């Protein structure tokens, strides 16, 4: 079983979960932790930690908003548990892809794949649009 905990500064975590819900509907395996809802980042950390310690049979993907941010820095301590995988620099596409990935695939592999495709999905578009799109992306294909 794979569970997701999204942790962020401000209210980005619950925001990203609400966006994911709008797109895929079911997000029952995702929990969000907004730093705004806690007194301190240590309280957030303790909450996440208790969850992980209580369920060693569940693999947890922790998604954090910012590499080097206090949320990520503290949660990285949880890498001492074997059921924890931390993905930082989260975005909506990354969450959706990883959430929908097959549980038959190892979490590590699924996370690396989602990270790779998420990196490729950070793009610039401007005028004229053709300058920003690869020819191969524009090509019409036959279905057979």
């Amino acid at each position, binding site marked *: 079983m794979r569970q997701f905990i999204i942790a962020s500064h401000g209210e980005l975590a619950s925001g990203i979960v609400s966006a994911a819900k709008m797109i*895929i*509907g079911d997000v029952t395996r995702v929990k969000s932790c907004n730093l705004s809802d806690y007194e301190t980042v240590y309280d957030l950390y303790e909450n996440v930690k208790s969850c992980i310690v209580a369920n060693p049979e569940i693999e947890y993907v922790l998604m954090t908003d910012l590499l080097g941010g206090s949320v990520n820095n503290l949660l990285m301590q949880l890498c001492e548990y074997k059921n924890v995988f931390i993905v930082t620099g989260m975005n909506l596409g990354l969450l959706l892809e990883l959430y929908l990935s097959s549980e038959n695939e190892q979490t590590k592999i699924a996370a690396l794949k989602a990270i790779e*495709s998420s990196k490729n999905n950070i793009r610039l578009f401007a005028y004229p649009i053709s300058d920003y799109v690869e020819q191969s*992306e524009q090509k*019409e*294909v036959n*279905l*057979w």
Partner: protein
Amino acid sequence: MVVLLRIDDRLLHGQVAFSWLNTMGPDAIVIANDEILSNEIQKTAIKMAKPAGIKMTIRSLEDGIDLINNDRVKKMKLFVVVKTTEDALKVIKRIKEKIPLVNIGGMSNRTKGNNNIAKGVYLSDQDIINVKEIQKLVDKVDVRIVPTDKKRNINDLI
């Protein structure tokens, strides 16, 4: 073989790309719409929305119908997306096979559609007439934005 015909005025976008394709696992997506063909930027945006590893073609409505009727796609599971109930009805009437499921997704034109039948779904009076006709011609019609939405009987909504 058409596995699903979706009516969505946004055509292919995140909800379709992530949730419907993930659930239905089609071999290819057919976007059948006349306006999109002349809008390069929208066409590009739709191409970008397509997940990797699935084929997609953007056609005019006529070409889309021809394609669905082509023997070469007989064994492929097609996910067809049209923009309006008029277009859906044309597809349904003109293709040789019977469609198992028509899904009404986003219909966000509030000025034209004065009947709000579900969240994000606004149908005009003509749309409702079209949907009633569609019901007679296909196995099933449902209103779901994403696949995990509760399946509601269309007759209770229109």
